[in-house]
């Protein structure tokens, strides 16, 4: 079972009400299809290096994880920051979709398996890991330590990670076309005018 993380409560947007903590907002900020989630955690004393060890993957492990992330195609980025002399951990991520409606999916996915390995070294999360928690308790743990961004900006506004992946594939293909003999002539076709305009550089 989960213990309350008193130290973290002053970092959240929750306010004490009649002595009982109020639930955090269910989700972070959202711009277009993209949401952000920032979770501030306190590291259990002496566990900083254990977290660094978990986050330090072998090249094979990293490749496997990157492939899994790419295949799902909804994560834009994730950052894990140990700060305050390694006493605190920031988990900051941006992804497509909402956080709160996907909590059960998250709990059933490989992401929680990956996070569980370092969350056990954070205050308020049991050493036994997720096996000892319900999904609702995991959700409460994360949202209780989550702080909604005051501002959230994406350069590629309104675009999902999948659309960015697709755009990159299209550009790779386009560059291949430009490197093909006869490309200039082929692009003269009126149907390809928008592409011809992109072909000069």
């Amino acid at each position, binding site marked *: 079972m989960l213990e309350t993380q008193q130290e973290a409560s002053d970092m959240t947007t929750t306010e004490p009400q009649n002595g009982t903590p109020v639930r955090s907002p269910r989700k972070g900020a959202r711009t277009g299809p993209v949401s952000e989630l920032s979770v501030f955690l306190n590291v259990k004393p002496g566990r900083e290096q254990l977290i660094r060890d978990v986050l330090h993957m072998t090249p094979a492990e990293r490749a496997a994880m990157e492939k899994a992330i790419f295949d799902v195609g909804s994560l834009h980025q994730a950052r894990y920051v140990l700060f305050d002399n390694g006493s605190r951990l920031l988990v900051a991520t941006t992804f497509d979709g909402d956080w709160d409606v996907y909590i059960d999916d998250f*709990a059933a996915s490989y992401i929680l398996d990956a996070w569980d390995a370092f969350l056990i070294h954070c205050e308020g999360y049991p050493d036994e890991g997720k096996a000892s928690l319900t999904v*609702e308790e995991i959700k409460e743990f994360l949202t209780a330590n989550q702080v909604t961004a005051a501002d959230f900006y994406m350069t590629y506004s309104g675009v999902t990670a999948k659309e960015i992946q697709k755009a990159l594939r299209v550009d790779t293909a386009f560059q291949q076309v430009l490197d093909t003999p006869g490309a200039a002539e082929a692009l003269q076709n009126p149907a390809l005018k928008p592409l011809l305009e992109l072909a000069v550089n």
Partner: protein
Amino acid sequence: MTAEPTITLEVDDIQAPVLHPRPTRYAGTVILARIDDRRDGRELLRRLIPFVPSAAGQPEPDLEAWTAVALSFQGLKALGVPEDILASFPPEFQQGMAARAADLGDMGESAPEHWEQPLGGPDVHLAIYALAPDAARLEAVIAGARDALRDVPGVTPIWQQDTYVLPNERTSFGFKDGISNPAIEGSGIPGTNPHEAPFKAGEFVLGYPNENGDLPPAPQPEVLGRNGSYVVFRKLQTRVAAFRQYVRAQARSREEEELLAAKFVGRWPSGAPLVLAPERDDLELGADPARNNAFRYVADDDARGLKCPLGAHARRTYPRDAPIIGVARMHRIIRRSSSYGPMLPDGVLEDDGADRGILFFCLQASLARGFEFVKTQWIDEGTFFGTPDEKDPLVGPNDGTNRFTVPQQPIRRRLTGLPQFVVNRGGEYLFMPGLRSLRWIAELDT
């Protein structure tokens, strides 16, 4: 989050439609009633219970008939369920469907202010849904309930809608439905997709662990929630003429018209899935229950949607093994819908003004994770498969500006200017209690 030992489902306490699929041919009715007097309401429940079959016994969908009883939050209140117990129901159920309209995308013509009265109002307390393989057997199963409603004074029927299979055994849009049914662990009833692992009972029935190993949130005391399931009821009017006109206008031939319509749905009129029959309808496949749902998307070589578009209605409302945000199995719902209204004759493109469509019924242990997720994430938005701008082309809240991408060789087809083909005429969130729970409510003494 821990592995659970195999559980035994109390099938003799679960109402029949939770586990038993709808017959292929059917006649049915939905009756909504208002409870003016709590004691009369409980008396009605006592008289209804003998007519409400459990899910025990081997299901034979084409032989059996059932009558099911469900209650809205307002109905539980009208029956005198105490406040502290009412408060233990999940918030979305307490609020009811009309209050959730903005979040659910029930806007414009589908907004509650346009709903058919009394749907969405405070008087919808009790629902009776009866379904049988034909009209004679329907009369046999509904007679007892009708007598009870007539004899008990403080309960008033306020709405009724008959439902029946069309002569061609298809929905008003012209497509066979009710094909995809999940297997539930412990029920002994096989699912229709042999490639789909059985689901933990707690995805659909309260009182059992769900796919995450947790018990779904349930009202207290335990007897009230156990073996119950949440029901979503919506009267969905279909704009069949508008759909036919739209598809006709996009197609250069009758064959292309049929193909485009199938691309909207994800299946052919016979029910044959596009993944298994990509080029033309296959009547034998559509009619074969062992094969007509035996497919996946990626595993059956359709990751790119060249056979079944990523945005097709059936694919997006249960993406199976397709790569999406999240885990599709977390959002499986049981569908028990039936058709209402006359068929628009084949070939007619002008609207005849008739009210026709689907009485949408689905069952789940969590409205938030079931219907509300499917509606908001899979139907009203395309972000989950990376295409935020595309809503469900068939049932989504399109407004004439939306598009639908149909992958094909050599160049994808992009349909634009999609109008709305389905309008919600109203609905409610209901709780379908187990039989012990129905008796517990009937015996309340408040």
